[in-house]
């Protein structure tokens, strides 16, 4: 891993992204209410999310369960169609549906390797399928499979081709799933929690494999995770999601060392960290809101220790707070400009100009709110 090169990461906009989602929105219809004739309500799983994946970089999408991170990955993979927004491949909108040509460029690795491989077929079959479907087999299928298995460090490959998925360990199965995704020689890999089902001692092996694919094959990788420490380890850029929206984007070490959004600060204060000298004090409390009737303004404001009047009325703009570092928070907007629909602020939201650097981000844990039952209200 060449980490030093990424430390000096430039704003993602300066590199032409391979795959981009602009203003992605997805809602699901859910049953709402009780009785024989329950009504339906719209659950906004993802609301206006913009994300760009550049070749040779890993972008981590971090959030709690229900934050919409998997839905974003699935929209980028075109497994589900967005209700709003557009997916761009090399800057061109992707046609509706999921054309095979798209699947050749963008592949997905799923969370559960126990479920994502066909259990009644041998590993060789699982790997041959994409090759035949995409007419990539070539004259020697066996050689192609062995080469794939070598790329994911399953050696010697002959030992694995004749096995069934259940004969492999979790880590080996996830490697096979990655090999299958690589078989069509994609340019984008969308990995949805690829290590969370695996044993602790083999997780790093898979993360290092993804890092290798980024460095050697120049893949654009999306790493969806709830584990911010592993995102810091693997990713070049971290995008933090909360309640279906992006709240902060930054180069990974910068995001964890200098979090600018109160929600990121809360996440970091809650993460296990044995190096911590003091017992952690949670920078906030409560649970994520219902996405059927999300809070007005900033969706984090009911839990935010720094919430101001404007936070409950108007959604915050995306403010550039450093190189490649954007935070959707009113705290970073100068007081005089904290006016709803202020043209200056809206310009900043469009990302065209950068506001003057704001004051230092509020330190973690300065305010301790008392937890109340209302805060923690039901999902």
């Amino acid at each position, binding site marked *: *891993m060449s*980490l030093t090169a990424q*430390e000096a990461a430039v704003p993602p906009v300066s590199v032409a992204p391979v795959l981009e989602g602009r203003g992605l929105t997805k809602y699901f219809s859910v049953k709402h209410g009780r009785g024989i004739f329950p009504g339906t309500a719209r659950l906004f799983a993802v609301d206006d999310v913009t994300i760009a994946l550049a070749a040779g970089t890993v972008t981590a999408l971090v959030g*709690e*369960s229900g934050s919409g991170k998997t839905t974003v990955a699935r929209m980028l993979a075109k497994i589900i169609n967005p209700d709003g927004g557009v997916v761009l491949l090399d800057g061109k909108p992707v046609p509706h549906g999921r054309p095979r040509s798209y699947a050749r460029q963008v592949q997905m690795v799923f969370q559960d390797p126990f479920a994502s491989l066909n259990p009644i077929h041998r590993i060789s079959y699982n790997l041959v399928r994409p090759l035949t479907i995409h007419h990539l087999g070539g004259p020697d299928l066996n050689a192609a499979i062995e080469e794939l298995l070598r790329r994911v460090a399953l050696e010697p490959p002959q030992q694995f081709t004749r096995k069934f998925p259940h004969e492999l*360990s*979790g*880590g*080996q199965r996830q490697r096979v799933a990655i090999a299958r995704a690589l078989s069509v020689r994609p340019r984008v890999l969308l990995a949805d929690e690829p290590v969370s089902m695996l*044993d*602790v*001692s*083999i*997780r*790093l*092996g898979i993360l*290092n494999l993804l*890092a290798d694919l980024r460095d050697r094959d120049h893949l654009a990788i999306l790493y969806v995770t*709830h584990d*911010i*420490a*592993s995102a*810091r*380890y693997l990713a070049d850029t971290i995008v933090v999601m909360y309640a279906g929206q992006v709240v902060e984007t930054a180069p*990974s*070490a910068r995001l*964890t*060392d200098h979090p600018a959004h109160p929600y990121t600060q*809360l*996440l*970091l*204060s*809650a*993460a*296990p*960290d*044995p*190096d*911590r*000298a*003091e*017992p*952690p004090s*949670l920078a*906030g*409390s409560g*649970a994520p809101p219902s996405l059927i009737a999300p809070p007005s303004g900033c969706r984090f404001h009911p839990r935010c220790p720094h919430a101001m009047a404007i936070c409950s009325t108007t959604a915050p703009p995306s403010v550039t707070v450093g190189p490649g570092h954007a935070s959707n928070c009113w705290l970073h907007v100068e007081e005089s400009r904290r006016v709803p629909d202020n043209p200056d602020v809206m310009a900043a939201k469009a990302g065209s100009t950068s506001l003057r650097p704001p004051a230092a981000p509020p330190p973690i844990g300065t305010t301790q709110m008392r*937890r109340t*039952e209302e805060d*923690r209200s*039901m*999902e």
Partner: protein
Amino acid sequence: MSETSPPARAPRTPTHSTARQADPVLEIRGLTVDYGFGTEAVHAVVDCDLVLRRGQVLGLAGESGSGKSTLSMAAIRLLRSPGVITGGEVLFHPRPVEGESSDPTIDLLRADEAELRRVRWSEISVVFQSALNALNPVITIGAQFDDLLKVHRPHLSSTERWDRGVELLEMVGMTGERLRSYSHELSGGMRQRAMIAMALALEPQVMILDEPTTALDVVTQREILEELMGLRDRLGFAALFITHDLSLLVELADEIVVMYAGRLMERAPAASLFRAPRVPYTYGLLHCFPPMHGERKPMEGIPGSPPDLRALPSGCSFHPRCPWAMERCRKETPVLTRLDASGREAACWLHSGGATVPAELALADPGDRGSSAATRRVAR
């Protein structure tokens, strides 16, 4: 809560974890558990010794399949078929009652149903990973508290039982109104809180926490753990905390035991284990968690994968993954032995018979509990 306790109980005094060598409350000796019989048997837990002291948080860390849950379930005789306990003893020491001289210690592995019934939940309670599976989905939380108290506290009237339920829920940060809810109406965090409240209902001396927060989000996990540790300081129960997340355990536990392939590999105070591991497996496991600070460096994790219990390697079962494996490791199985006066123990040939200890495994011990979780908590 004293008004609802049975009159026979001695009043509870806060037993802070500063009591360094408190009396043991649960002693597991030589526990061995197999799945299956005869030559087909898989040895899930082999000859394990654990001592849980009053008011202590003992962490049991291990990967899936290491036998950590099997060990705890066997210790309280909740193991299901085809699990078979083939040896050992589990001694539970009830709180001594003044004026009684006879030894009230119970060996749970030899106890009959009536004795087990007296101990289970009233003295040793369990919080499982999935509260959704542990709670009854077709009756309300309140009805489940009611059932529990009706059986174990028959002298309480139904209003008293309800009040006790409200009190317990408030103790874990919920409102009493939630007694009317069904488990599916609660969020994951609240379900686990309700489960903890239920585990505390009879004021047990020991709580077994089997991955209690693994299924939860990190913010909820932190809130629940803070509450749990606060209750521990207040009520003084001892906790056996089982998890695969060693980095979390370092923050929580007083002492940590690391398990691998059914055997205990290392036992040490939390800070010592984190700063100066003595066993290659512990060292490797600690290097599986990317740090949250400092320079980002490539890390290697542990090569290979955890062994199949049906085909364990000879000798030390970690030797195929161990960078320092010696000839002896392939032939002989190390047992947990005391390393020095500090009382920490390790099962590794590198620390016996004149072998050279690699520098990584010979770091200076940060000393006795100077900065252990317990002291930090008390100072708070």
